[in-house]
């Protein structure tokens, strides 16, 4: 159980880091409050969630047709479309485009999909300089860390840690811990990069098939700059991000920004349909879209698990998860953390690689309650648990089924099942447990590390019911 042991090490590190947990506690509390303020009317919220779910579910049913239509419209518009099955292929395509254009410097907007493919490392190894332009991503790029949240990648860092990083990497700029001043430093440093970069790389929030339009959501302006200033723009997205119609966008945009950061709308909503036209004076002359599969088409085969693909990457589930707030994002060890992470990553990577993550969930349901597209996350996580301990349950194309089965645990559940499905056996057991209660150990492994040991009562409820004259039938 290598993955289990490694996960426990990371959990251990996280739980011992008081500063980290304090950072997360205050960050998550704030973002939950801001989201709640955007939804004062619960009826309206539920109606919006229904709408968003309907839009996304519809997109997934029609996915192949929509992708073909998207490709057709984009191509008509002059945007070049590429298909990639996995990370290696996606990175190679992007590298090929950059190389053909002689592009040596790239400025990058936020893209979780590019984290999946590890694009930055791939390009750096091939001599291409790539700089993250979103402030949070820039901070973790300096720190050489992966993001700890899908929307707020540097949420685990406080201002002192950022100040230290800026001191190290921008020695010419006077040291400061003031957030406004740190922000101005980032503006100053990145401004020239935007102006001089050969290419911009971005993600996509929604890809509209009807009109061949790529939609990007952002607050800082780095996304617009990355997709407007350089001569070349390459966008990469997961194939599940396609939506059918332009009219699908407003409800998704509204619920995305309100759920993600508690904003009625982000500073910019950027809709790109064409490269620079002959009479236009700016914008990239060449625009490419890479459509990445990376396991998504396989997930869609399963009628229950495909709900995972409705996700619009708002992060609300992560923000509300009582486990995530204790661990932070890095403990999960995967690109996507929190509830969406433990539902998606075992499917993407295989239960044998990431199935152990499903244990980091109490099934409290806080995530499902806030998911803007009503993904039944606890149900999916429970299903993955069932698949990880039993290879023969289904034939769904999920790799590593049964890989977490432990013969000792399976035996315990078999015995438990026998005991609890035979009433007389059960009553014998409870009789023995109550009458021999003085034998209950005071230490019960992990339980008693934090709590006193429970002890059987003197008489079971079965006994008391009989004594008090409650009828059996």
């Amino acid at each position: 159980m290598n993955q289990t042991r490694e996960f426990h090490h990371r959990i251990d590190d996280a739980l011992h880091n008081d500063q980290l947990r304090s950072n997360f506690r205050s960050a998550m509390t704030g973002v939950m409050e801001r989201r709640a303020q955007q939804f004062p009317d619960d009826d309206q919220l539920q109606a919006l969630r229904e709408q968003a779910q309907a839009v996304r579910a519809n997109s997934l049913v029609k996915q192949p047709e929509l992708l073909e239509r998207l490709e057709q419209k984009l191509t008509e518009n002059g945007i070049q479309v590429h298909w990639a099955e996995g990370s290696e292929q996606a990175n190679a395509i992007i590298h090929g485009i950059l190389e053909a254009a002689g592009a040596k410097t790239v400025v990058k907007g936020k893209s979780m999909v590019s984290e999946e493919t590890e694009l930055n490392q791939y390009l750096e190894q091939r001599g291409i300089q790539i700089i993250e332009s979103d402030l949070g991503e820039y901070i973790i790029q300096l720190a050489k860390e992966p993001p700890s949240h899908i929307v707020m990648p540097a949420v685990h860092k406080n201002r002192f840690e950022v100040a230290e990083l800026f001191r190290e990497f921008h020695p010419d700029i006077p040291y400061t811990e003031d957030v406004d001043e740190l922000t101005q430093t980032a503006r100053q440093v990145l401004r020239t990069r935007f102006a001089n970069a050969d290419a911009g790389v971005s993600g996509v929030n929604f890809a509209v098939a009807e009109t061949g339009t790529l939609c990007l959501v952002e607050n800082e302006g780095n996304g617009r700059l990355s997709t407007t200033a350089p001569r070349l723009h390459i966008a990469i997205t997961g194939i599940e991000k396609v939506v059918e119609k332009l009219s699908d966008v407003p409800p998704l945009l509204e619920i995305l920004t309100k759920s993600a950061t508690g904003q009625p709308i982000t500073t910019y909503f950027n809709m790109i349909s064409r490269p620079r036209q002959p009479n236009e004076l700016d914008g990239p002359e060449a625009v490419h879209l890479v459509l990445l599969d990376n396991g998504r088409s396989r997930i869609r085969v399963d009628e229950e698990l495909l709900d995972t693909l409705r996700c619009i990457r708002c992060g609300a589930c992560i923000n509300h998860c009582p486990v995530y707030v204790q661990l932070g994002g890095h403990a999960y060890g995967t690109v996507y953390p929190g509830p969406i992470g433990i539902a998606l990553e075992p499917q993407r990577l295989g239960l044998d690689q990431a199935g152990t993550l499903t244990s980091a969930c109490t099934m409290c349901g806080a995530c499902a309650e806030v998911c803007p597209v009503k993904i039944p996350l606890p149900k999916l996580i429970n299903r993955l648990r069932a698949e990880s301990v039993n290879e023969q349950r289904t034939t769904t194309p999920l790799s590593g089924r049964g890989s977490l089965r432990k013969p000792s645990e399976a035996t315990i559940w078999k015995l438990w099942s026998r005991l609890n499905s035979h009433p007389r056996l059960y009553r014998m057991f409870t009789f023995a447990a109550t009458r021999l209660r003085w034998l209950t150990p005071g230490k019960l492994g992990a339980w008693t590390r934090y709590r006193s040991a429970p002890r059987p009562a003197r008489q079971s409820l079965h006994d008391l019911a009989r004594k008090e004259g409650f009828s059996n039938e």
Partner: protein
Amino acid sequence: MSDTRDTILSRLRTNRPHAVPAPDVYRKPLNWDREQCITSFTERMQAVRGEVHRVGRNAWIDWINTEIPCRDMTRALIGHGAIAENFAAGASAAFELTRYDRKIEEWKDVLFHEIDFAITGSLAGLAESGSLVLWPDTSEPRLMSLAPPLHIALLEADRLYENFAQMIEQEDWADGMPTNALLISGPSKTADIEQTLAYGIHGPKALITLILE
């Protein structure tokens, strides 16, 4: 690579999930009159440090002439068309005017480092979210509303829609999208450091909307 495309598409065509009802068109009628639209637009913009002023249709140039030089901003960028010509004709001598009339590659450094503010029009405004709608084009290119530290946008008072859903439907955006369409809802900002809001990161540090009546 068409192999990859075919592989992915054929996998998607196998085991198609059960059909679901097509979503209704999302409409959120607020039944606001023009005054309510202006009020909502203004409040939402101001809540994120956007400046909003109502000025007479012929008074916007005077407003800029009066208010902007004292903010230490004199290097103005204009495009082409009525707004640009009118401003060029009536601009205060305090301003140094640059026209965006050549490809960006020819003058990037100036645009990024030597322009204080740009003046553009707008296609419309969205009252509910406090957003300007821009369709940049040859006469007012994309970087005008992005690179300079101040963006001044003119918005016709009777071009305020309630919300995005309403505008997309009523103006039939699905019929044809431009190279780039934008919703701009304030000056640029970030909360990436300790979730503390900081304004003026990569996009404009300030956004002024002049509502023309």
